[in-house]
C-alpha cells in the first residue's frame, strides 16, 4: 500500500537522522581536534597527553587509507573536511592538495625547523618529517655472491648487477613512484635510458612494496639482494630482528645512498575546520621536540625539527643521507603523468 511504503520510508530516514545527529559532538567547552592521517600513522600511546594537559584540547586520530587515498578524499572534501589537521601529505602529493585548496595556510614558527624543508612547503603547510626511498641491499647475500654493493644508478644498470634488483611498480606503489622520481632527479634528460638499461638488466617490477620486500628480497627468502625500500628499513631490521641482534652486530642491510630520493611529509590545517586556532597549536606541537623525538622509532621517519635528538639505534645504524635526490612538488605535479606513461611504456 502506498501509505505503508511512505511510512516506512519516513521511518528509515528518521532513524538515519537520529543516528547521524547523535554522532555530533563539539561542544564549546571540550574541544577535540581530529587529525586525519594515513593508516600507518601510529604515534606512541599517550604522546598527546602533554598537549592535552597544557591546552585542555583532546586529540583523536582518524585513519583514511594510505597517503594517496587520503589526499583523494581531502580534495573532494575541501571546505568541509573530515578533521581539523591533516598529517602526512608528502611532496609528491602536495600540489594536488594545493590545487584543490585543501588547507588553511599556516606554517609553524617553532624553533629548529629545517629551513630547507620549510622552503618546499609553499607557505601553506608545515614540514613534519622526511624519509628517503633508497635501494637497500642484503649485506650477507652480496658477500656470498662476491659482489661489492652498488654505488649508483649506473651500477644498477651494469652487467655485474644483472637480475639482482626488485622494485615496486611506479604505477601502483608510492615507493615505486619515489624511486622513479629519484632516477629522474638524478638524470633529468637521460632517465629513460637508465630504465631501458635496468629493464635489459632484468629488473623485477612487482605490484607493491610488500611483495618486493617480503617475497622477492633475498633477506626474506627471495632471489634478489637489491630492493627498493626506505632508508629506515635497515634500522628497522635491527630493532625488530628476531632473535634480537647483540650489541655491535653489523647491520644486515644497508642503503645505496646515491639512490635515495627524499620524501618530505607535511601537516596542515584543513580549510573549513571549526577550530583553526587550536589546530595551529596542535601543529606547533607536532613539530616540537617532544613529538618529533618520538617519531623515528614509532613512525620510522626523520624529524623535521633539527633540535630533536635521535636515539642511539638511529645514530649508530642510520646512514645519514646528506645529499639526497630532491624534486620540487610543483615539478612533480607538472610532469608526473607524462613520466608515468613513459615509464610504463619502457618497462611494462
Amino acid at each position, binding site marked *: 500500500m502506498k501509505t505503508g511504503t511512505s511510512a516506512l520510508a519516513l521511518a528509515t530516514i528518521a532513524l538515519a537522522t537520529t543516528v547521524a545527529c547523535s*554522532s555530533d559532538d563539539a561542544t564549546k567547552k571540550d574541544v577535540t581536534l581530529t587529525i586525519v592521517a594515513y593508516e600507518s600513522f601510529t604515534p606512541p600511546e599517550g604522546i598527546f597527553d602533554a598537549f592535552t594537559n597544557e591546552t585542555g584540547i583532546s586529540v583523536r586520530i582518524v585513519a583514511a587509507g594510505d597517503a*594517496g*587515498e587520503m589526499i583523494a578524499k581531502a580534495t573532494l572534501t575541501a571546505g568541509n573536511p573530515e578533521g581539523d589537521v591533516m598529517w602526512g601529505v608528502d611532496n609528491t602529493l602536495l600540489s594536488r592538495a594545493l590545487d584543490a585548496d585543501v588547507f588553511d595556510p599556516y606554517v609553524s614558527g617553532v624553533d629548529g625547523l629545517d629551513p630547507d624543508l620549510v622552503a618546499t612547503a609553499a607557505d601553506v603547510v608545515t614540514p613534519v618529517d622526511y624519509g628517503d626511498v633508497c635501494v637497500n641491499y642484503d649485506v650477507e647475500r652480496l658477500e656470498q655472491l662476491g659482489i661489492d654493493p652498488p654505488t649508483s644508478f649506473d651500477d644498477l644498470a651494469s652487467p655485474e648487477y644483472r637480475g639482482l634488483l626488485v622494485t615496486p611498480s611506479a604505477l601502483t606503489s608510492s615507493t615505486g613512484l619515489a624511486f622513479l622520481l629519484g632516477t629522474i632527479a638524478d638524470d633529468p634528460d637521460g632517465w629513460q635510458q637508465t630504465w631501458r638499461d635496468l629493464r635489459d638488466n632484468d629488473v623485477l617490477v612487482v605490484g607493491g612494496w610488500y*611483495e618486493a620486500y617480503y*617475497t622477492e628480497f633475498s633477506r626474506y627468502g627471495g632471489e634478489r639482494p637489491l630492493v627498493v625500500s626506505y632508508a629506515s628499513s635497515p634500522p628497522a631490521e635491527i630493532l625488530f630482528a*628476531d632473535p634480537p641482534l647483540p650489541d655491535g652486530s653489523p647491520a644486515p642491510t644497508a642503503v645505496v645512498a646515491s639512490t635515495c630520493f627524499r620524501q618530505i611529509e607535511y601537516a596542515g590545517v584543513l580549510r573549513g575546520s571549526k577550530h583553526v586556532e587550536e589546530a595551529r597549536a596542535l601543529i606547533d606541537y607536532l613539530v616540537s621536540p617532544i613529538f618529533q623525538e618520538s617519531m623515528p*622509532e*614509532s613512525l*620510522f621517519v626523520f624529524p623535521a625539527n633539527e633540535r630533536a635528538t635521535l636515539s642511539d639505534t638511529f645514530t649508530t645504524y642510520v646512514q645519514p643521507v646528506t645529499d639526497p635526490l630532491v624534486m620540487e612538488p610543483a615539478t612533480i605535479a607538472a610532469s608526473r603523468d607524462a613520466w608515468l606513461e613513459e615509464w610504463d611504456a619502457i618497462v611494462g
Partner: protein
Amino acid sequence: MPSSADPATAGRVRLFAVPGLVMVLALVIVPVFALASRTIDSASLFGVWSRPGIVDAIRFTVAETILSTLVTVVLGLAPAWALSHHSMPGHRFALAVTTVPFMLPTVVVGAAFLGLLPGSVERGLVAVVVAHAYFNVAVVIRTVAPVWATIDPMLVAAARNLGASRSRAFVSVTLPLLKPALLSAVAIVGFMCATSYGVVRMLGGGDATLEVEVYRRAVLFGDIAGASTLAVAQLVVAAICLFVWVGKDRVVFTESGHRSRRRDHPAARVVAVIATLITAVPIVALVLSSIRSRGHWTLAGWRLLTSDSDVPGLRVDLPDVLFRSLSFAAIAAAIAVPIGIATSTFAAAARRTILDRVLLLPLGASAVAVGLGIVITYDSAPFDFRSSWWLPPVVHAVVALPFVIRVIQPVQSRIPEHLRSAAATLGASPLRVWATVDVPLISGAIRTAVGLSLAISLGEFGATSFLTRNDSDTLPITVEQLLGRSGDLARLAGHGVAVVLLLVTLVALAFTTRSRRSWSAS
C-alpha cells in the same frame, strides 16, 4: 508470506523489499553517481578513454573475467559434488576450510602463497586466473553443493538406464538442474573478478583491470574525474549484464522436495580431502609465516601480540582489535540477515528475481568510487555520517547481503505453498504463517547466513578501506599496518594477526549449519 490474492498482504509484502533496496541505493548507487556528478565534466567523460592503458585495461578486464569465471566454475564442480554429500564425516570442516580463502583479505593469502613458491612467479593473465579460481571456488561450492544435494541419484540412474553414458547423463540431466545455482555462481564470481583489485595488483604484472585503473586515476594521478567516469561505466555495464542475463529465471526443483538420500560415495570423500588440502596449503603457509622467519622457528611474533611488550612502532592491542572486528561482524550480520530474510520473503512471494539482481550490484561496483562517493554524499546534516563508527559494518552488510539472500531464498522458495495454506485454514494470519511456517523451515539457512555474514565482515577490506576510521582498527587493517613495516617482528606479528583473523573466520564459517532440516511434502 503466501502469494495470496489478498491485496493488503501483497502490499505489505512489497514493503519487505524496501530495506534491501534502500541499502543498495544509499550506499552504492547514490554515492557513485554523486561522485560522478560532482567531478565529471565533458573533458573527462570522453578524454579518459584515450588515456594510455585504459583500452588495455578494458581488454584485460574482459579477458580475465571471462577466463577466471570459466576456470573457477569448472574447477569448482568436483568439490561442489563432493560436498553435496552432507553426511560425509568432516563435511562441516571441509566446507569451512574451502570457503575460508574467499573471506580472507587477498593480500595476505596471496603473499603467503607467493612465499611458498620456489623462485619468482610469472606474473600475468595466467597467474591472475589461477589466483581468482583459488579464491572464488568457494562461491561455486557454496552455491552449487546445496542444490546438488537435492538431485536424487536415482534420477541420474534413470537417465543411465535409458542409455545415457555417465557424461551424457551429467550434461542432460544434472547440469540443467544445477543451472540456476551455476548461473548464480557465475554472476557472483564474474562480478568479483571484474572488480578485483588486490589479486591483479599483486599478480597482474604490467596488466591492470579497470578497477586498478580507477584506483590509479583517483589516487595516483589525482584524476578523480577520470576515475569516476570509469567507475560509472563499470557500474552501468554491471547493471546491463545483470538484467540482460538470463531472462527466465524459473527455478526447477525435483518433484519430491525431499533432501535426497545421498549415499556416501567413496570418491566424494577423496575429492573433498583433496580440495581441502589444496585450499589449506596457503593457509598453512600463513600459519607458518607467523612462527618462522628467515629460516628459523620463533614465537616472538606471538609474544609481541599477546603480551604487553611495548616495542615502539609495533604496538598492537590485539584484544581491542579483535573485539572491534567481532563487534563489527556482529553488527553487519544483525543488519544483513534480517534484511536478507525480508528480501527473500518478498522474492518468494512475488516470484520475481529482479530485486535479487539489484542486490548483486554492489559486488560489481568499484570500491574506490563507493568509498569516495560516500565521503562526499554523507557530509552534511542530516546525513552527516561519513565518519561514523557504524558505517563500516553497514557497508559490510551491503556486501554480505547478496550472499545471505542466495542462501536463504532457495530454501524459502521450496516451501510448498500448501503448507502455508494449511496454516492459513487453521486460522493463522499471514504474518503468523510467515513466523510459524517459513521461519522455522529456513532456520538452518538463517544459521548459515549468519555465519557467512560474520565471515565476510571479518575479512572485508576493499570497500571499507576508504572510509575514515576513528580508532577503529579491524583485524585486516592491523595486518596491513604491520606488514607495511620492515623487520622480522613486524612480519611475524603481521602474520600472527592474519592467523587470528583466519581462526575467527573459520569459527564463524563452522557455525554454518551442516544440513537443512528435512521436511516431507505431505
